[in-house]
């Protein structure tokens, strides 16, 4: 039901990348100290890919996600998403662009506590201008898709951790974005629940969802179709599935 078309703008048969980052630098400055969190990072993501980003804590994985998704500003370099240079947009336009093109899944589930599951999931749809009744229908359908059809009117604090994360996944999918970012989505879950979430993500990827998953968990990272190894703000190595 949720099929993700591969974009082929050039018509060359090889799809254009969803995301292209070139020479991205990011330095955090706190007082006198400064941390170079990204050093001249370049990467691209093709439609339908499941990219895993791995590295030890502090290696710059979250920074990569924040910068490439446009949640954070960069110091130099370029990031193209669906052919648009996101960091040269105004904050408002970037927000709208983000609502249309991207979804996010975080480690701590980050649902809005005063909204029910369905209300949380329909937020990006409403942001994208979908009519309320249609948005609700699609939100319910998406919750169904992640196996939470029976929990649509529960508030987040009435759900278990795994269920909350499924709601987050549904929220990330609902707007049918071209790219979903996941930052340690299983970090707060026990291994069994974590496994089922990863399985869900793979299922969605098989249906065509493009995904960038940040994790420090080798077992999860290795299931990705392409694995990017980070160290000290740089890409240490890139490997395709099975090549590790």
């Amino acid at each position: 039901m949720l099929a993700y078309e591969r974009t082929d703008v050039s018509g060359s048969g090889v799809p254009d990348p969803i995301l292209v980052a070139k020479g991205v630098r990011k330095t955090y400055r706190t007082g006198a100290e400064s941390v170079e969190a990204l050093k001249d990072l370049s990467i691209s993501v093709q439609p339908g890919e499941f990219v895993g980003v791995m590295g030890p804590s502090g290696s710059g994985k979250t920074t990569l996600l924040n910068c490439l998704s446009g949640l954070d500003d960069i110091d130099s370099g370029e990031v193209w998403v669906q052919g648009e240079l996101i960091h040269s947009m105004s904050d408002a336009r970037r927000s709208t662009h983000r609502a249309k093109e991207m979804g996010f899944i975080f480690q701590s589930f980050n649902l809005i506590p005063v909204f029910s599951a369905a209300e949380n999931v329909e937020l990006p749809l409403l942001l994208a201008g979908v009519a309320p009744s249609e948005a609700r229908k699609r939100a319910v359908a998406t919750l169904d898709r992640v196996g939470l059809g029976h929990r649509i009117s529960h508030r987040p604090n009435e759900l278990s951790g795994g269920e909350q994360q499924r709601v987050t996944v549904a929220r990330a999918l609902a707007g049918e974005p071209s790219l979903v970012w996941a930052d340690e989505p299983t970090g707060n879950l026990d291994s069994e629940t974590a496994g089922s979430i990863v399985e869900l993500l793979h299922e969605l990827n098989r249906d065509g969802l493009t995904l960038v998953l940040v994790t420090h968990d080798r077992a999860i990272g290795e299931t990705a179709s392409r694995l990017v190894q980070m160290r000290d703000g740089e890409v240490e190595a890139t490997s395709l599935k099975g090549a590790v």
Partner: protein
Amino acid sequence: MILAFAVVLLGVALVLMVRRPILRRLAVRDATRRPGETVLVIAGSLLGTAIITGSFIVGDTLDASITATATQQLGPVDEVVMFTSAEEASAAAEALRASDAVVDGAIAMSSARAALYTTGSEPKAEPGARLIEMDIEAATSFGGDPGQTGVDGSDPAGDEVFITQDVALALEVGVGDEITASLYGVEKRLRVERIFPRLGLAGFWTGFETISPNAFVAPGTIAAALEGQQDPSVRTPPSHLLLVSNEGDVEDGAVLTDRVTREIEEITGATNIDPVKKDRLDSAQTQGDQFSEFFLAIGAFAVIAGILLLVQIFVMLAEERKSQLGMLRAVGLKRSDLVRSFYMQGGIYGLPAGIFGTLLGIGVGWAIVKVAAPIFGGFGDFSLDLTFALETSSLIAGFSIGVVIALATVFLTSLRISRVNIIRAIRDLPEPTRIRPRKRSMIAGGVVAILGVMSLLSGLGNEQGWAGVIVGPGMIAYGLVPLFSRVVGTHRLLIGASIGSLAWGAFGNEITSGAFYDSGDIFAFVLVGLLLNVAAVILLTQLQDAIGAVVRRFGAKRLSLRLGLAYPLARRFRTGLTLAMFSLVIFTMVFISILSNVFSGQIDNTVKDEAGGYDILVDSLGTDPPSAAALEGVEGVDRAATLYFGTAQFTTPRSRDPKPWTTSGVDETFVEIGPPNLTDDDLAEGISNDEQAWARLLEDDEAAIVPPFFLNEGGGPSIEYVRTGEQITIIDPVTGKSAERTVIAMTDDDSAFSGVYMNSDSLRDVMGAQVPPSRFYVSVDGDADAESVVRSLQGEFVRNGVEAVTFRSRIEDFQQGSLQFFRLMQGYLALGLAVGIAGIGVVMVRAVRERRRQVGVLRSLGFRPLMIGTAFVIESTLTALTGVVIGVALAIVTARQLILNGEFGDGIEFIVPWSELLILAAISMVASLLATMWPARQASQIPPAVALRIAD
């Protein structure tokens, strides 16, 4: 006492801080980490202290200002005894001086009312002066302190007069100028020799006036004027007084009053001893207290709003630190330790709030006095000079009450909020919603309900039990909720209890036929307001699901609106607190605003009620009144009715000590031309309308009609000392003669102070020549201009000391005074609004901080910064708006109910001053909007990447 309590509470905080460094660190860290917010919290809670302190200071000022009149108009004089002849008074003075009574002064004085005026191109008149004969030399050192008598030198010669500053001002004369005195119809030219200050014996005055138009003349002047009077029975005779000064100075001497009274009785045989000083000081105290109480009551709403703010802040604090608290509990901190830590933090806020609040309170008091001074100074001869005064005890009391309220609030709140479950707190799980009420709350509910029944029952039929009657039914209703919640469901029960309480608050007074307000205690109004507002807020929070559904239906697409509403709807308790804070303050402000408008819109009605068929009120000298026929001879005058007018002492079943009040004896003419309106529901049995009542008054020598505010002194709400059908006693202050009269009706208004009406025979039977025919109600010809008739009357009857005024301008002056007073109260209440707005600011600042992470999530979803800011603004503005709407609605309903029930008098039209209310609402909305601007901006500018990194 209260200070000791405050000190103990603060001391406990201090001891805890010294003994428990870990808890101290916890408390101090929180207060110092966010200095801006701490300042806001302190600002919000210090206003309560300021209001309390300010109210006390206002009372001090009134007390001191009235006490100052005692120095000016009584000086050393503590008691006054009236005699029927100068000889008797002198003999009594001599006997007293020769005795070993604890007095340091006894002097005789004769006086008579006279008109003083100047002639020439611009004549001036003082129609109500008093001519005094007294041994000036002896008077100088009367009471032992020549600095307090105001007189010195020796007696004036035959053509000389010593006048007070007040007379000099009225006549615009100085030493050496000539003036004319008219007394008992005899004119006498006098030369001003000396001018005395309004002080002590020079300023001696026992009337209601606050000026002392005295003129001292040579001995024998009054007796000479009296010779050859034809009809002494309709002239006020001269009064012959014995003035006594107790040992001790002007104020201290009063403590000896009871003893000296007995001694005077023994030595002189007189029985009608008037303890003037003690009465004046007592009245200063009473009026000061009433004034304080009045401002306290009005300010109570702001104080309550301040308490709600404090509760709110601590609830938020606890929520914010929930996981931290859980962690601390996990590592071994006891629950009581959490309470202690919160309590310390309360101390950290409470002490500076108390200190600065007290200081601000001085400013508040000062500002009120500044604004009130012209109001009090605007009553002509009855004006009171308000001079700012404050007593240390007021500052101490204000500080202590403020601190006790703050710390008690914090303590009780932290008892509740420290009850966190460790696991739930750490994992940030919600408190489970209990399906079944706990036994404890069932028992508590039962107790509350039983207490409610008891207080309702004990309150009914007991005037002082109004509090029980007001809150009793609410206690029963809410107390029953936990008992029946298994059967009916808490939600529905709460809705029912709230609707019931609202109805009781609005209509209970009518149902119990006045049990709410009959005592006249203004705090009854505070309690009703509280009941209504709390019930309304509870009702609203119970209806939140319905409201949420409506919002979702109509506002589904407006994401900011949905977001802005989702939070307040989900946080019932906190929203309820904010709502109540706002609605309480708005409620009072609107109520006052409605009342002030209703009253100022009543001038035409009041004039019609009070003046009846008359246009002009004429007063003249009791010693030389003109005749009604003479007045009717003036161009433009149609008819004039004569009133026998004077001041008597009265007692009633609920006012046992004789108090002075004016009284008027009337006859057929007065009733025929058109007497004042009577209160419809206060007619005695067998009388069904005004006409019958006045007819009864004329034929029944035992009947009396009393005015509203009868025997009330000072401001504040009126106390009903007597009701229709009951008896009052009238006493002649000179002879001590007394008689009983039955109240058959009440007048609606009495700004003319005609006082208690009787028929003239009945009144003169008791009061004799003390009620001369000196007052006239005058009607003018259809085409005559009342104001120019007033000028003619005053010009033609200068010698008779005629003072004329139209009823309309008299009533307008009065209304002007009360209108200004209403404005003053509104300004005072604006302080409460400041609490509400500071509160919304604090709440929103905290909300922004609490939700930073969620803001990050929303931003990652694609919410634009503007949408986030808008959501926050919507949240606070809608909360404020709801509070405003509740407050306005309740105030309108309550005021309407009271006015239509006749609590403020008959036939008063109910008007809602919409434009004023709109302005009020707009001001509060704009102010709360401004208070939210900053936090909302903060929220919208949170960078998403940073917000998402914030740990829970």
